[in-house]
């Protein structure tokens, strides 16, 4: 039987990346931890941003992690879905705005 490419339980092993490159791994996790601390933005706001980015990056581990993190911070499912729509809107907008480049090219080549 073939194993699925992603295994949800692998998320628990994320910290192990330091074993093969300790200094860089530790620097990453220090930075990561600092980023998510309460700052000018609340930890709750950061969790929602992370959830939206997790979807645009289509990272299953991040989706699991920040869905749970959002729930822990009292975020409602309606707020979570709206955050994902923000990500989706930017993603589709980023595709469509390149339509202008296509139009420019057509106009140049074909009048």
């Amino acid at each position: 039987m073939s194993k699925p490419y992603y295994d949800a339980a692998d998320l628990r092993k994320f910290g192990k990346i330091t074993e093969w490159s300790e200094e860089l791994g530790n620097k990453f996790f220090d930075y990561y931890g600092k980023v998510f601390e309460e700052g000018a933005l609340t930890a709750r706001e950061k969790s929602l941003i992370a959830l939206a980015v997790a979807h645009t990056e289509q990272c299953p581990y991040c989706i699991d992690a920040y869905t749970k993190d959002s729930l822990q911070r009292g975020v409602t499912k309606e707020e979570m879905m709206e955050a994902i729509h923000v990500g989706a809107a930017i993603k589709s907008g980023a595709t469509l705005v390149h339509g202008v480049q296509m139009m420019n090219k057509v106009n140049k080549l074909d009048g």
Partner: protein
Amino acid sequence: MATATKSLKKQGSDLAQSNKQLEILSNGIFKNGELPTFKAKISETNQFPLKAKKLEILQINVGYMCNQVCDHCHVDAGPDRKEIMTRETMKQCLEVIKNTGAHTLDLTGGAPEMNPDFRWFVEEAAKAGIKDFIVRSNLTIIRANKKYYDLPEFFKKHNVHVVSSMPHWTRGKTDKQRGDGVFDKSIKALQELNAVGYGMPGSDLRLDLVYNPSGAFLPGDQSAMEKDFKKALMEDFGIEFHNLFAITNLPIARFLDFLIASENYEDYMYSLVEAYNPAAVANVMCTNTISISWDGYLFDCDFNQMLELPVNSKSKHISEFNEELLEGRNIVISQHCYGCTAGAGSSCQGVVA
């Protein structure tokens, strides 16, 4: 969710038996070494055996009967539970209350108000003049029947500190966990408590809320949650309260049943173990609390009471209560204890670290 109308006991579920729950907590990932047992974990920081300090809190469970059947109830409480403390046992408790060095008396259940001798007990216990006299009220009981409508005034008369469960500031999340209509009734009850002075800024009539997560995840930061609760309850309903206690769901009784049925058990135990905080162990509530069951037996905490793990002491019953003997006793532990040491820790009074 919140579809249950009967306790696990009434349903005849295996998980109504404490030995079955303890078996699950000792086997699987804890037996095959995937995760360390609680004993192994606290031994790493030389905190085993966990010892009781001076008694500060006397928590009395006056019965498992409740008007609600909440999804995650660690008591497996409900209308079908018939275990109720008798006046005779209450009298034995009063003797202890009069002489104890504890500064806090904490009445819990079930819905403690459903015990027919509840008011008599509160009146008598209040005479002992204990510094902090808590009643854990589920709020909806105040609106459940005419005979309970005057509870806010009754609490006020005896200067009772009211601590009430409120899983979320939105209707959907609250009703999902506690049953349809619970949110609206809770809001009404909170407004009535506010009306007699409970929870108001500067008021001595203490009203605190307890938040526990509605699913298989740990509570967020207590102070951030308190801010969110205060803002939402004030803006939407004009409600005031003093503090929010964020409490972790312990993997026992109905919450354990939910974790297993939803295939979240292993992940949840991983989350608890990963969030283990040795600093929380030092102040965990069993070290300064005695929990008394409806039939007068003594336990390290309400969770051990539900798991039928009695205190490790010669003083085992309220009729032979001996504070000196109980101090320094070894606390009885199992893997459920990880619930009280995760993150900032968890106790009936919220975070501990």
